[in-house]
């Protein structure tokens, strides 16, 4: 008898990572906080008026870049229901859509900020927190666990603690913090990721914004599955934010929510937040397999994608 070649497999022993459909670019048309809402619909119209030409530009740029000119551009809008709860979806969403329509903008997807913390039993923020790999200062050899200030993340080495009088009676002079990958001089950034009052943890705005970027880039998985896939809403808008799905598909013809790259059109007042977001994102280790999936997909489409994920994120501050 000839030898029989046997193969044996066990499902629980394999890693299965779902893939996610991807547009070329996900454009965030706006981000609504309570203060914007309180400022009235005028503020929203003003935002959309500023955004409209940039969206047109992005579409044109991607049409040139994509072979055949079939650019997949999806748009999204984020509403803050995490840091403060205001109005109701039934009241707010139609107002937003109307203001967008006045400038010929179509919002394809609408998302709730609290979903970036937790939704449908998936704690996206925890998931991302576990994927943080601290940027090591020089001479980090692994012999000691990384120096951490709980709930904070920085891009270098913090200033040594200065106590007024040392044990020997000599005051220790101040020493500067140092950025790890500095070019000449340091730009040291230290970001608060969360705070806790009792057992309740509040994630910081930059941390949730980092989760939001990862979600838009299609780089998150929970137990191998794609978290928070967009949902088409049947019936009207609910009266409670919690009743609204995390990501709602508003436009049935929309290209996929997640994309190879993202563009956010924001007011310059968000500049410090976005610096913090980039500090966080440059320390998130995305799953190897997920990175490979996205890279293979883009290569097959003839699109060269930036290797580092922070380079896939761009902004227009207007």
């Amino acid at each position, binding site marked *: 008898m000839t030898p029989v070649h046997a193969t*044996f497999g*066990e499902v*629980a*022993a*394999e*890693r299965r990572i779902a893939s996610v459909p991807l547009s070329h670019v996900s454009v965030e048309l706006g981000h609504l906080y309570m203060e914007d809402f309180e400022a009235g619909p005028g503020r929203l119209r003003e935002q959309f008026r500023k955004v409209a030409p940039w969206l047109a530009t992005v579409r044109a740029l991607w049409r040139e870049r994509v072979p055949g000119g079939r650019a997949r551009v999806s748009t999204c809008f984020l509403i803050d229901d995490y840091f403060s709860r205001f109005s109701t979806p039934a009241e707010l969403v139609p107002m937003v859509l109307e203001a967008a329509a006045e400038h010929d903008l179509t919002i394809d997807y609408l998302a709730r900020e609290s979903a970036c913390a937790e939704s449908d039993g*998936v*704690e996206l923020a*925890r*998931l991302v*927190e*576990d*994927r943080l*790999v*601290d*940027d*090591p*200062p*020089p*001479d*980090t*050899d*692994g*012999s*000691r*666990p*990384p120096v951490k200030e709980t709930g904070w993340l920085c*891009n270098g080495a913090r200033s040594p603690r200065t106590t007024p009088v040392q044990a020997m009676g000599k005051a220790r002079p101040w020493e500067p913090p140092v950025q*790890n*990958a500095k070019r000449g001089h340091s730009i040291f950034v230290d970001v608060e990721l969360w705070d806790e009052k009792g057992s309740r943890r509040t994630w910081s705005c930059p941390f949730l914004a980092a989760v939001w970027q990862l979600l838009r880039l299609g780089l*998150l*998985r*929970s*137990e*191998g599955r794609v*978290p928070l896939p967009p949902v088409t809403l049947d019936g009207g808008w609910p009266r409670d934010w919690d009743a609204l799905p995390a990501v709602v598909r508003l436009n049935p013809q929309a290209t996929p929510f997640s994309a190879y790259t993202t563009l956010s059109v924001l007011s310059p007042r968000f500049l410090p937040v976005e610096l913090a977001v980039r500090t966080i*994102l*440059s*320390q*998130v*280790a*995305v799953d*190897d397999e997920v*990175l490979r999936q996205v890279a293979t997909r883009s290569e097959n489409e003839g699109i060269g994608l930036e*290797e*580092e*994920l*922070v*380079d896939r994120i761009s902004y227009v501050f207007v």
Partner: protein
Amino acid sequence: MLAMGEVHTGLLQNSGEISESTCRQVLGLMAGETVRVSRRPIPHALSPERLTGVDCALPSASRSRIRGVGTVVSRCAVTGGRVAQGSSYVRVVRSEADRRLPWSHYLSRPGVVEVLGKAKAADLAEGFVGDPAPGCLDMGAISGRFLDLVQASPLLDRRAPFRIPRTSLRWVAETGEPSIRFTLHTEQERTLRLTHPGPFTPAVVDLCEDLATHDWLLTSLLIIVERARIGATPGAQAVARLAPAIDHLLHLWMPAARVEEWLRPFWESLERQPGFTRQWRSLVDRVRDQIATSTLALLSAATEAGRR
């Protein structure tokens, strides 16, 4: 250039073996990531992988200052619900830049440490399996911490049936003409030099972890047999000392169970020289013979007593 790693192996700090569901919880090191479990031919659970950032000197036999920046991959494993491991490794490659780049660059290549400046693979390999100078990349400390993480799980009762030291296996793998060199250093330290055909894949890490598991089993059984002082202590006492081995170790010997086909010849060559399984079998026979003789002695004593 090369890959290197270190595996720490120890007895799980629990009175008995742990179930698959406990394993999943103990090894759940990352939210949203599954613990991979295989049941045949022996239960084996593997944690999700985590990264540690490093920027430090790499070990070098010539003691030259070679700077490496990147991430170390670590994971934990539990075999047979009984043997725990913390394992770390890196792939060392030459950097295209001569300065440290933004951290996001290194995170886009998980498990890679980039060498800034000149370095020779042989110098690094010799340095790593030799005696790495302090201040150099310390994968032993990283693996040790990962093993601690498992051992400190609140799900374990910390009442291990016997005390056995941890062992560490430091390994270096390079591409080339197949060869393997396994060296015992002190009681707990081992090194492995491996040259494999084709490029490095994580299957090489599986092989090193499998060898580490079996080397630990063999070392532990040797210690238990030694402690039993067969021949020097009364039979019943020796058997009592051998009992933990029967309860907890003897069924765990399953060489090359999780090793990919193309790497099996490496295990097989170690089976010829020094012959891990040969030594294991002889020890197991010794344990069983001791028990058989002791049982016979007890039986005949009981028969004697019955006759009287």
